[in-house]
């Protein structure tokens, strides 16, 4: 949560449904300067929430304001907004420079030509600026879209999966850029379904699943929640039967399954189980070659967060 003084984007009890399908359900949150990660599996409602912030989608219930103005009622709210959509859509017939300049003119940039050159340099596109965007790779298109969103120096930057298709170097560059903008006082809201990406750039995370707010807080507090998740652990050992039998007797394992040389343990307390494995392996003279969580998917993390609410 941001303090009332620093709130730039306010989401008040917002729901959105398309016919019978509920895309977003009763989400309330505020956003301020810094980078906020909107984390959730595909189809969780992140895109709908971001599009409601831009005015492209009207909430079925509730209210969204940008700097106190509802973007659905007053287009001037969009003076403050830069938006990068999830899809790859661009005007393929335009060069990157013309594409960014087009966005600069529409956004009312004071110096469209100068501002265009600045953001093209910022996203490192100088070498390709005069090539048609239609011929760009996905990563280059993403950078062009980021440049177009930044060209009028918006105070609120809404980014829907902006790292999609970017190679590792480009990802790193864009993550650094978003962090820098957040540190400079921009409100950066970036959606992703990749946990570690969000962790790298966000000061705060809002987790969404099935259209609902599953968890919210800084990266550390969300991490702490996730360490409590029951996990399935795979253990490879030279004497799996002995270790499996020993584990059944502990309170840390809620289920044990043996498959050739591999033990699959349902861990009720992953941290306790890790300590128990080491202790039992030493006690029974078992050599453990691998311990690996089997169920690390973001969906399982979100599923857990939802069910514990």
């Amino acid at each position: 949560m941001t303090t009332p003084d620093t709130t730039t984007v306010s989401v008040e009890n917002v729901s959105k449904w398309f016919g019978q399908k509920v895309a977003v359900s009763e989400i309330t949150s505020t956003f301020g300067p810094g980078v906020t990660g909107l984390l959730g599996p595909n189809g969780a409602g992140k895109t709908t929430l971001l599009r409601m912030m831009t005015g492209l989608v009207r909430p079925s219930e509730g209210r969204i304001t940008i700097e106190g103005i509802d973007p659905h009622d007053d287009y001037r709210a969009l003076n403050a907004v830069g938006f990068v959509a999830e899809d790859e859509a661009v005007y393929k017939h335009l060069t990157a420079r013309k594409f960014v300049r087009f966005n600069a003119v529409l956004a009312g940039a004071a110096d469209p030509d100068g501002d265009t050159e600045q953001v093209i340099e910022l996203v490192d596109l100088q070498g390709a600026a005069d090539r048609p965007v239609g011929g760009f790779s996905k990563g280059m298109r993403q950078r062009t879209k980021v440049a177009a969103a930044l060209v009028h120096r918006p105070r609120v930057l809404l980014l829907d999966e902006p790292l999609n298709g970017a190679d590792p170097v480009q990802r790193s560059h864009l993550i650094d850029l978003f962090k820098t903008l957040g540190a400079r006082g921009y409100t950066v809201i970036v959606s992703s379904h990749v946990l570690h990406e969000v962790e790298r750039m966000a000061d705060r995370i809002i987790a969404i699943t099935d259209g609902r707010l599953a968890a919210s807080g800084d990266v550390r507090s969300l991490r702490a929640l996730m360490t409590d998740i029951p996990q399935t652990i795979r253990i490879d050992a030279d004497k799996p039967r002995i270790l499996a039998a020993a584990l059944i007797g502990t309170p840390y394992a809620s289920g044990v399954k043996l498959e050739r040389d591999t033990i699959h343990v349902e861990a009720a307390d992953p941290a306790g189980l890790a300590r128990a494995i080491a202790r039992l392996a030493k006690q029974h003279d078992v050599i453990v070659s691998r311990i690996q969580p089997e169920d690390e998917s973001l969906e399982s993390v979100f599923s857990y967060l939802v069910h514990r609410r």
Partner: protein
Amino acid sequence: MTRTIRPGAAIFFNILRRLMQRRIAILLVFATAAHALLMLTFDLTERSFSEVTVGLFLAVALPVTGLITAGAALGDERTENTMPYLLVKPIPRWLVAVSSLLASVATVMAVSTLGILLAWWLGARATGNNGIGWPMLVAMVIIAVGYSAVFVPIGLIARRSTLIGLAYILIWEGIIARVVDGVAASSIWRIGLTAYADLGGDLPRDVDDLLATLTPGTGGAVVKVLVLTAISITATTWLLRKQDMA
């Protein structure tokens, strides 16, 4: 004012360029030049000039060009997911509506230029009447504006706006408007034809029949398309404000 003109011009030229660069634009250039090419094949008189211009250009090629072009003006923005570049901007929605309508009209006029100029030149050379093309030009502008006004908003809400338009031209304008009294007034190319008949004098009898119950008159035609344009801009603006761009 600059805050309106510059973005409006940018949207206009972007849509115009996109519409002109579509492959179908080349086909439409030939379709709207078909009547002029046909004029090359026989000895042209003022009567035959009117018959071919009305029967092939104003009543067929131009309406089809208009509906295809207008349906794509904002329809392509929607289907190609580029609408956020227009709508997540601090500009009023009516500006997007006006700019796209003007871009559609300009595109229809641009692709029709070859046919208009060639027909005019052939008609003037054969008949000695250098003003023979004026009624065709005025009617063309009226029809281009009329079809753009109707099909820009339809393209925004219907993915198959071309099919809807063809059904409208073939069934509504082609059949129903000829047999049901009063319906001819809703036929856009007939509205253009009233200006053509008014400026061009007497039409040949078979062409005159196309007017159905309408009476020639340029002023009335202009007023009708202006009203249609105002309704179109209002409807498109409303749709851009109310429709979810999910």
